[in-house]
C-alpha cells in the first residue's frame, strides 16, 4: 500500500510531463493557413496573411524585390511549412518571433538601422536622462542624454531594452522602426523590489498583503556564522533568534512572531529552492545530553542568493500546515545568463574566544565551614565545595595523594578553554549563455571550538543548472551534497560531561593537577570529591567522547512549460535525504557516567520528498484588471528509519566495539507520513494600486484518523497603494501602501498517534516481556487550526530618503494536538489530545533611512523593532498550569490568562511592603510560589548602519533585547558551591568572630558575632535584621528551600552583534589583472555588550533550542566572540 503511494507520486510527475509536452506540440502544429486567393507578390502575400491570421512581417524595403512572385504547392499549410517554402523560393530568411511577428532578412547581410527616440518618465512625463538602452542579447548599448533623447545603431530585427533604476524595464522590438519613443513607468514601493514568495513565485513587494523581509545573501557572507540563521539576528523585525552555548555547530532557537504551538514545533519552515527541508533540531535537556545542531547549520552561506522571511500564516498558507509558523525561503545562486566563465574564490578565517566568564571569588578554597576536608578526595556534600579556609599557600594534602600549596587559582576556569578557529574556503565556478547557466561550488569548513577536542569538518558541493529552450521550456535543477563530522560536542546542563558545570563548581584552589592527575593509579577518574555526580572535566575531555557524522543530499528538479505567455505549468520534485550516524563512548572508571565503560552507536536515515504540480494562468481583463490563477497539487512523503545499539561493561578497557560489551542493547525506529494536498491560488489586481490574493488548500494527512484526515483552509491578502490610487503628489510621501491579510491554516500531527500501541521488549530473560506506551492515545484527533490576521503599511517619504514598514498582527491557535499531563495515578503520564488555545499579537516596525547619497559617499541606517505577546487563553478543562520546563529552582509554565512561558518560582517570604522576613536565626524564608518573570522579551530590536565611501564599506549591527528573564542554575550552583564572587560576602567576618575548633559553629567568647547579614526585617521584632549567619548556611538555606528569586535574572542587553569593514579594489586597479572583482573584509561578531543586565552571563546561553530554550541557563560554556577576515576574488 505504501509502495503504491510512492508509485503514485512518480506516475503523477511522468503523466504531467507527457501531458505538457504533447500539449505544446499540438498547439504549434494545430493552426493551418488557407492560402486560397493570396496575392503572389511578397508584400501582397504578407499583408494577406497579416489580415487573415494576424502574422506580421517585418523587413527593410530594399530586401524584397518588388517583382518577386511566389506560388505554393498547396493551398493549406501551417506557418512553418509556409515559411519553409517561402525561404527556399526567395532565398530570404524568416524568423518567427513572439506574438506572431516574423522578421524577414537577407541572409549574411547585417541590416543595421539607426533608431532614435526620447525616453520619458511615466510619473511626470519629463525626459529621463541616463536610461540604459541596450540591444537585447548584445553589449551594444547607449545612455539617454540630459533631454532624454538617444540614438543607437542596431539590426532592424533586434529588440531594445530600456532600463533605469527605479523604473520598470521595457523591451521594445525594433521591427524596422526608426523612431521609438518610450515612457518608462516608475516602479513603486522600494524601487519595485521583487521578492521571492511562497512556491518560489517572484512578486513585486508592493503587491503583497503581508509582511515579507528579504535579505541578500551578500550581506550575510562577510561576517559568517556557522549557522546562517544567526546572521539574520537583528535584521528582521519579528524574528527572534537565540543562540545556545553548546559548542561548534550548536543549534539556535528561531521563533517568528512568538510561540503558537504550545508543545509542538514552533520553528519556521525552511524552504530551499522551493523544497521544504527538514528543519529539525536536537538539543540537550536539563539533565544533559549534547546539542547536535539543526538543519539550518547545513546551509552553506556562500551559495545563498537571497533569503525571504515570510511572516505569519497569510504569507505561508501555500505551504500548508507547516507554514503556520512562517517560512524562511532560501534561494541559492544559479549562475547568470551571460556568456563566459566566472570563478569566485573566497576564504574566510575567524578566531573565536570566550566572550564572558563567570565571576569567581579567589579567597577561599576546598572545604566547608571554613575547614579543609579531613580526607581528600572528600566524602562529598558539602565538603567538596569552596567554603574551606582562606587560601594562603599553606601546604595541605591534595586529592591525588600528596601535598601541595593551597593557593588561589583565578584562571582555573578560563585555562580550560582554548581559542577556537574556523577556516572556510569556497570556490564557485559559473558559466552561461543566453539560455543556459550552470554554477558549481565547493566549500570546505574546518572549525575547532573553545572546548579542546571539539571540532567540525564540513564539505559542501553544490551544483545548479538552468536552461531554457526557446520560450517554451525552462529547466532548473540542483544537487547539494553536504558532509559534516563533528567530534566531541560538549555536554550541557546537569550532565557530567558539561565542562562549564564542573569548572563552575570545582574548588577555587584546583590547579593543573586536575589535568595532570586526572587518572588514579588504576586508570580510574580521579577528582577532588567522592560525590558520584561530579566529574573531572579533563578526564571527561579524553575519556567521555562522542562524534557524529552526517551525509545530506538535497536535490530538486523543476520544469516550467510555457504554453503561451498567459499559461505555464511548473512541475517540481525535490528531496532532502539525511543519513546520520552518532557514536559515544566512555572508558571504564568514570564516577559520574557508569563505572564500567559505555559504547553507543546510532544510524538513521531521514527523507522528505515533495513533488508538486502548479499550473498558472494569467490574463488581462480589459485595461485595468489583471488576473492570475494557479491550480496545483502537492505530495509529501516523510520517512525515518534508525537503528541504534549500545553496550556497557567493557571487557577490555578503551576498546569501543559492541562485541567488547558484556551487555548490549539494540533498537530500531521507523516512521512514515504522507500528506496529499490540492490547492488553488490567485491574484486579482486592479490598475496599479489594488491587489487581492487568495489561497485555498485542502490537505489529506496520513497521521489523522480516517474520518478527520481531510481539512480545508485558506488565506486572503489585500494590498492597496493609496498614493497611486489617489494620485497623491510624490513630493513628501513618495509612496504609500496599506495591506491586510487573513489566514486560516490546519495542521496534522506525527505518525502513529491515533491508537494505543503495545510492544514486545528485547530481553535476555527466559520469558516474554512486553510493554505499552504511558501516553494514552486519543482515537478522535482533529486537525489543529491556526488563524491569523495582520494589517500593515509601507510608507516612503522624500524620494525614499525615509521608509517605514509597520505591521500589527494577531494569531490564534486552537485545538492543538498535544500531550496533556494526566494524574500519574491514572497509570498514564499524559494523553495525546486536542487542547489549548494560544493567542499571539504583536507589532513590527522597520525603519530605513538613507540620509546621505552622493557619488562617493552613502549612508544607510535601518532600525527594526518588534514586540510580541503570547497569551494562553485556555489549556484543557480546568487545568491550572502546564509545566513546559523545570529545574530545581524554577519552572516555565503555561497558565490560562497568562503569557506563554511565565517563570514560576518560590519567592522569599515577605511583608506587605515587599521586604524579606527573616527568621530569628537570621535566615530568609520560603514565601509564595508565584509568577516571578517571563522568558519572553518585552521587545527586541536591531540597529544597523552602513557607510560606504568609495570602495570602503563599514557596517555594524547593534541588537537589543528589553526585558524577559533567564533563570540561571549556573549562578545558583556557584552560590551553593561557594565559588561565585557573591558567595564570599561575610566569610571574613564570620571566621574572625567564630571558634575554628568547632568548624566556626560557635562564636568566640566575648566577641560580637559578625557574618552574612541577610537584608530584611526580623519576623518577630519588625526591625531590620542584624543576625549574622555562616555564609555557607546562607547559600545552602536558599538552595534547600528552593527559593528562586535570586537566580532569576533580567535578560535585557544591548550587544554589538556585528561589525564589518570591507574594501573592494577599484576596477581600474585590477583592470590589467585577470580579476574582475577583489574584495577584502574584516568582520567581528558578538563583540561586546553596551549593556548586559546579567553581567557575567550571556543571556544567550541556553542549553536547548526548543520552545522554552533560553529561559533557563545551566552552567553553559562561555558564549563566543569572533573576529575574522574574508577574502574574495572573482575572475
Amino acid at each position, binding site marked *: 500500500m505504501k509502495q503504491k503511494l510512492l508509485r503514485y507520486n512518480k506516475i503523477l510527475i511522468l503523466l504531467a510531463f507527457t501531458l505538457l509536452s504533447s500539449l505544446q506540440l499540438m498547439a504549434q502544429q494545430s493552426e493551418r493557413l488557407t492560402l486560397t486567393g493570396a496575392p503572389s507578390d511578397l508584400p501582397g502575400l504578407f499583408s494577406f496573411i497579416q489580415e487573415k491570421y494576424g502574422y506580421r512581417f517585418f523587413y527593410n524595403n530594399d530586401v524584397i524585390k518588388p517583382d518577386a512572385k511566389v506560388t505554393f504547392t498547396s493551398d493549406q499549410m501551417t506557418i512553418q511549412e509556409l515559411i519553409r517554402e517561402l525561404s527556399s523560393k526567395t532565398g530570404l530568411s524568416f524568423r518567427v518571433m513572439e506574438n506572431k511577428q516574423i522578421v524577414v532578412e537577407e541572409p549574411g547581410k547585417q541590416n543595421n538601422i539607426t533608431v532614435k527616440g526620447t525616453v520619458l518618465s511615466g510619473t511626470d512625463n519629463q525626459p529621463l536622462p541616463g536610461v540604459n538602452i541596450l540591444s537585447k542579447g548584445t553589449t551594444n548599448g547607449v545612455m539617454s542624454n540630459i533631454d532624454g533623447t538617444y540614438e543607437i545603431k542596431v539590426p532592424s530585427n533586434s529588440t531594445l531594452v530600456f532600463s533605469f533604476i527605479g523604473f520598470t524595464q521595457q523591451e521594445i522590438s525594433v521591427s524596422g522602426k526608426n523612431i521609438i519613443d518610450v515612457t518608462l513607468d516608475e516602479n513603486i514601493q522600494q524601487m519595485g523590489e521583487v521578492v521571492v514568495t511562497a512556491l518560489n513565485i517572484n512578486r513585486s513587494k508592493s503587491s503583497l498583503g503581508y509582511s515579507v523581509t528579504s535579505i541578500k545573501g551578500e550581506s550575510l557572507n562577510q561576517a559568517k556564522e556557522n549557522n546562517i540563521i544567526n546572521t539574520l539576528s537583528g535584521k528582521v523585525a519579528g524574528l527572534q533568534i537565540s543562540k545556545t552555548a553548546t559548542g561548534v555547530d550548536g543549534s539556535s532557537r528561531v521563533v517568528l512572531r512568538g510561540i503558537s504551538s504550545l508543545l509542538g514545533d514552533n520553528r519556521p519552515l525552511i524552504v530551499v529552492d522551493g523544497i521544504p527541508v527538514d528543519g529539525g533540531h536536537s538539543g540537550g535537556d536539563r539533565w544533559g545530553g549534547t546539542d547536535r545542531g539543526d538543519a539550518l547549520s547545513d546551509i552553506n552561506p556562500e551559495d545563498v542568493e537571497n533569503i525571504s522571511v515570510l511572516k505569519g500564516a497569510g504569507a505561508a498558507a501555500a505551504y500548508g500546515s507547516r507554514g503556520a509558523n512562517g517560512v524562511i525561503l532560501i534561494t541559492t545562486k544559479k549562475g547568470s545568463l551571460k556568456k563566459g566563465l566566472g570563478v569566485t574564490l573566497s576564504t574566510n578565517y575567524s578566531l573565536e574566544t570566550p566572550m564572558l566568564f563567570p565571576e569567581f571569588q579567589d579567597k577561599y578554597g576546598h572545604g566547608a565551614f571554613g575547614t579543609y576536608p579531613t580526607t581528600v578526595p572528600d566524602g*562529598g556534600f558539602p565538603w567538596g565545595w569552596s567554603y574551606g579556609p582562606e587560601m594562603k599557600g599553606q601546604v595541605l594534602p591534595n586529592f591525588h595523594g600528596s601535598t601541595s600549596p593551597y593557593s588561589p587559582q583565578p584562571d582555573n576556569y578560563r585555562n580550560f578553554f582554548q581559542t577556537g578557529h574556523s577556516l572556510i574556503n569556497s570556490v564557485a565556478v559559473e558559466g552561461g549563455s543566453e539560455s543556459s547557466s550552470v554554477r558549481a561550488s565547493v566549500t570546505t569548513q574546518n572549525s575547532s571550538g573553545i572546548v579542546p577536542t571539539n571540532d567540525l569538518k564540513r564539505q559542501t558541493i553544490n551544483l545548479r543548472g538552468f536552461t531554457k529552450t526557446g520560450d517554451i521550456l525552462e529547466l532548473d535543477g540542483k544537487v547539494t551534497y553536504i558532509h559534516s563530522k563533528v567530534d566531541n560536542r560538549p555536554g550541557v546542563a546537569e550532565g557530567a560531561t558539561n565542562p562549564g558545570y564542573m569548572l563552575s563548581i570545582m574548588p577555587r584552589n584546583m590547579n593543573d593537577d586536575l589535568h595532570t592527575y586526572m587518572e588514579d593509579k588504576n586508570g580510574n577518574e580521579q577528582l577532588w570529591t567522592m560525590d558520584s555526580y561530579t566529574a573531572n572535566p579533563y578526564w571527561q575531555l579524553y575519556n567521555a567522547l562522542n562524534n557524529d557524522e552526517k551525509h545530506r543530499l538535497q536535490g530538486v528538479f523543476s520544469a516550467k512549460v510555457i*504554453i503561451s505567455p498567459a499559461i505555464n505549468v511548473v512541475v517540481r520534485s525535490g528531496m532532502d535525504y539525511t543519513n546520520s550516524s552518532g557514536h559515544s563512548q566512555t572508558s571504564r572508571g568514570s564516577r559520574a557516567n557508569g563505572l564500567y565503560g559505555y559504547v553507543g552507536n546510532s544510524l538513521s536515515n531521514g527523507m522528505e520528498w515533495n513533488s508538486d504540480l502548479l499550473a498558472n494562468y494569467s490574463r488581462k481583463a480589459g485595461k485595468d484588471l489583471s488576473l492570475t490563477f494557479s491550480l496545483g497539487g502537492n505530495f509529501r512523503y516523510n520517512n525515518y528509519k534508525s537503528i541504534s545499539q549500545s553496550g556497557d561493561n567493557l571487557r577490555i578497557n578503551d576498546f569501543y566495539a559492541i562485541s567488547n560489551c558484556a551487555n548490549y542493547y539494540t533498537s530500531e525506529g521507523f516512521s512514515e*507520513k504522507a500528506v496529499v494536498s490540492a490547492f488553488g491560488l490567485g491574484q486579482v489586481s486592479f490598475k496599479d494600486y489594488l491587489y487581492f490574493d487568495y489561497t485555498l488548500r485542502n490537505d489529506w494527512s*496520513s497521521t489523522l484518523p480516517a474520518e478527520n*484526515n481531510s481539512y480545508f483552509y485558506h488565506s486572503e491578502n489585500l494590498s492597496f497603494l493609496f498614493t497611486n490610487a489617489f494620485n497623491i503628489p510624490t513630493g513628501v510621501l513618495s509612496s504609500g501602501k496599506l495591506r491586510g491579510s487573513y489566514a486560516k491554516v490546519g495542521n496534522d500531527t506525527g505518525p502513529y498517534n491515533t491508537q494505543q500501541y503495545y510492544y*514486545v521488549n528485547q530481553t535476555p530473560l527466559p520469558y516474554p516481556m512486553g510493554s505499552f506506551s*504511558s501516553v494514552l492515545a486519543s482515537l478522535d484527533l482533529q486537525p489543529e487550526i491556526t488563524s491569523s490576521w495582520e494589517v500593515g503599511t509601507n510608507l516612503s517619504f522624500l524620494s525614499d530618503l525615509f521608509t517605514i514598514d509597520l505591521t500589527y498582527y494577531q494569531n490564534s491557535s486552537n485545538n492543538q494536538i498535544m500531550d496533556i499531563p494526566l494524574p500519574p495515578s491514572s497509570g498514564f503520564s499524559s494523553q495525546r489530545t486536542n487542547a489549548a488555545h494560544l493567542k499571539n499579537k504583536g507589532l513590527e516596525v522597520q525603519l530605513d533611512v538613507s540620509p546621505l547619497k552622493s557619488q562617493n559617499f552613502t549612508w544607510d541606517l535601518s532600525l527594526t523593532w518588534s514586540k510580541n505577546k503570547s497569551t494562553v487563553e485556555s489549556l484543557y478543562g480546568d487545568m491550572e498550569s502546564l509545566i513546559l520546563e523545570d529545574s530545581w529552582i524554577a519552572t516555565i509554565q503555561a497558565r490560562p490568562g497568562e503569557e506563554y512561558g511565565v517563570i514560576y518560582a518560590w519567592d522569599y517570604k515577605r511583608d506587605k511592603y515587599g521586604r524579606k522576613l527573616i527568621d530569628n536565626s537570621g535566615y530568609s524564608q520560603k514565601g509564595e510560589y508565584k509568577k516571578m518573570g517571563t522568558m519572553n522579551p518585552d521587545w527586541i530590536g536591531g540597529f544597523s548602519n552602513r557607510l560606504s565611501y568609495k570602495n570602503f564599506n563599514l557596517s555594524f549591527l547593534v541588537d537589543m533585547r528589553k526585558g524577559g528573564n533567564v533563570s540561571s542554575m549556573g549562578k545558583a550552583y556557584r552560590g551553593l558551591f561557594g565559588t561565585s564572587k557573591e558567595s564570599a560576602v561575610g566569610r571574613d567576618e564570620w571566621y574572625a568572630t567564630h571558634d575554628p575548633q568547632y568548624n566556626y559553629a560557635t562564636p568566640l567568647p566575648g566577641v560580637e558575632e559578625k557574618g552574612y547579614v541577610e537584608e530584611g526585617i526580623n519576623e518577630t521584632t519588625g526591625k531590620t535584621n542584624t543576625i549574622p549567619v555562616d555564609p555557607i548556611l546562607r547559600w545552602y538555606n536558599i538552595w534547600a*528551600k528552593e527559593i528562586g528569586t535570586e537566580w532569576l535574572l533580567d535578560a535585557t542587553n544591548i550587544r554589538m552583534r556585528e561589525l564589518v569593514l570591507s574594501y573592494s579594489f577599484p576596477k581600474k586597479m585590477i583592470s590589467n589583472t585577470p580579476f574582475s572583482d577583489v574584495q577584502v573584509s574584516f568582520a567581528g561578531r558578538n563583540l561586546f555588550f553596551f549593556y548586559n543586565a546579567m553581567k557575567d552571563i550571556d543571556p544567550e546561553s541556553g542549553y536547548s533550542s526548543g520552545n522554552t530554550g533560553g529561559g533557563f541557563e545551566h552552567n553553559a560554556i562561555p558564549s563566543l566572540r569572533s573576529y575574522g577576515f574574508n577574502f574574495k576574488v572573482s575572475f
Partner: protein
Amino acid sequence: MYKAKIFYKMFRRSLLFTVILLTVGISSCNESLIDMNENPLALSELPDEYLFTTGVRQIMRGDIGDYDLRFNSQYAHIYVTNSEMRASDSYKDFHTQDIYRFMFENNYINSLRNINEVVSLTAEGKYENPVRNAIARITASVEFARMTDLWGDIPYFEGAKGLDNILYPKYDRQEEIYKDIISQLKNAIGVLEKADPSMGYAGADPVYDNNLGKWAKFANSFRLRLAMRIRFADPAYSAGIITECMAHPFIEWNNENFGLKFQESENSELYNPWYDIRKHQDWKMSDKFVEWLKATNDPRLEILVDTTKAGEYKGYLNGINDQATSQYQWTDFSAPKPILYSKSQPRNMMTASEVWFLRAEAALFNLAPGNANELYQTGIRRNLEFWNVQPAKIDNYLNTQPEAALNGTTENKFRQIATQMWIAFVPDFTEAYSNIRRTGYPVIPQRTDSETFSLGVTNGILPKRFKYSSSEYRTNKANVDIAVENQGPDLIDTPVWWDVRD
C-alpha cells in the same frame, strides 16, 4: 486569437484532467494514507503474559534506589549515607517534591499500569482466565499495599485505570484499600487452591514458575501480614481475618519466598538491582543496627556488616547534621557487606522468616493457636538459614542468646519479635520501616541534640509517611485535597490510618 483559444481549451482540458487525476488519486490513496499510519514496529494488542512478566518485575525491582535506599534504609536505621541522599535521614521533606513524585509516578505509570492491564485482560474477553486473573490481582495488591503503607490514602479503586477512561482517580481511604485487598486475596486463594496449573503462567512466571500452590501460600501469608499490620487500628476485623488465614497453608520455607531470583551475570536485567546501586559507594551501616547485632552476638553481624580498617564493627550515627559530619572520619565506619548487593542475591518482598514471626505475634496475643516462642525461633532460624549461617552457629545463637528466646512481659516479647523482624527484613527496608511504625520497635528515639543532629521538619521524630506527588497536585488537585482533608496535612509526620501505636 484563434490559436490562443485552442491553447486555452487545451489548458482547461489539462486542468480538468489534473483535477480528476488528483481526485481519483486522493480517494484511492486515502486508503493507503490510513494504512500508512499503522506502526510496523508495534502491535495493537498483546497477550497478557507479556505484560504480566513486565509488571511483576517492575514491582520487584523498581525503585530500590529511592524507596528502599534513599528513604527507608535510613528511616529504618540500617544504612546511613553522607551524600545528598542524607536529606531524608535528616528528616527533611526534600527541597522539592520531585523525589516523592518520581516514586509515586513510577509505580502507577509502570508496574500498576501494566499489572492492571493484565487484570482487565484476564477478567473477560479473548484472554479471560480466572487463574491468571487471581495471580495478577495478588501481584497488584503487593504494590498497592506497599504504596498505601508509605502514603496513606491513595487512588486504589480507580488507580491506574486510564485505559478504562478513568483519568482523574479518586483517592481512597487506607482502611477501604486494606479491606478490599484482603477480600481480593481471599478470592484469589479460593481460585488458586483448586486451579488447573495449565491455566497459570507456565513459562512466564518469574516468581514461582507457575507453582500455583506457592502462589496460594503467598497470598495467604501476605493476607496475614496485612491483617497484622492493621491490628491496632481495627482489632476486631483483624482478629477475624487472622482466624481465616490460619485455615490455609503459609509460606514456611525459604524456597517459598515471594521474590525474584537473580544470577551472576554481566547483564543488568539478570542480576540483582542492588548491585548497581552500590556504585554509589557512600553508604555505611547504621550505628543502631551494628550496635544491636554486636550486643546480641548475632551471627548476622559478620555476614551483613563489614569491618573498618581498624578491624572493628562500627556503625555511623543516623541524622548527624552537616556541620557535625566533619567530626566523624567517614572512612572509619563499617560499610555494608557485599552480600547485601551481590549479583545473585534474590530480591524478596516476603520471606518465610517474616511469616513465622507474624504467626508468633498472633500466637503471643492469642489471635491464633501455637507456641509463640517456637514460632519465633523458627522465624529466626529461617532468616539465619537464608544467610547460610552454619547450623551449629544457629543452634548456638538460639540456645545461648537471651534475645533469641521470648522472655519477660508480653510487651517485651512483642519487642523481641518486632526487633527480629527488623533484622530479618534486611534488605527489604521498606517493610522494615513500616514495621517500625506499626510496632514501635526498635525504638527510634526523638532527636533532641541539635548541635549534633538534624531535627528536620519533624522536630527529630521519625517521619511517618511520604508526601504526595507534586504532579498529582497539578493534575488531580481536587482529589488530593479530599485525601488531605480525610487523612490530615500532607506532611511527613502525619500518621497513616493503621499507625496508631505510639
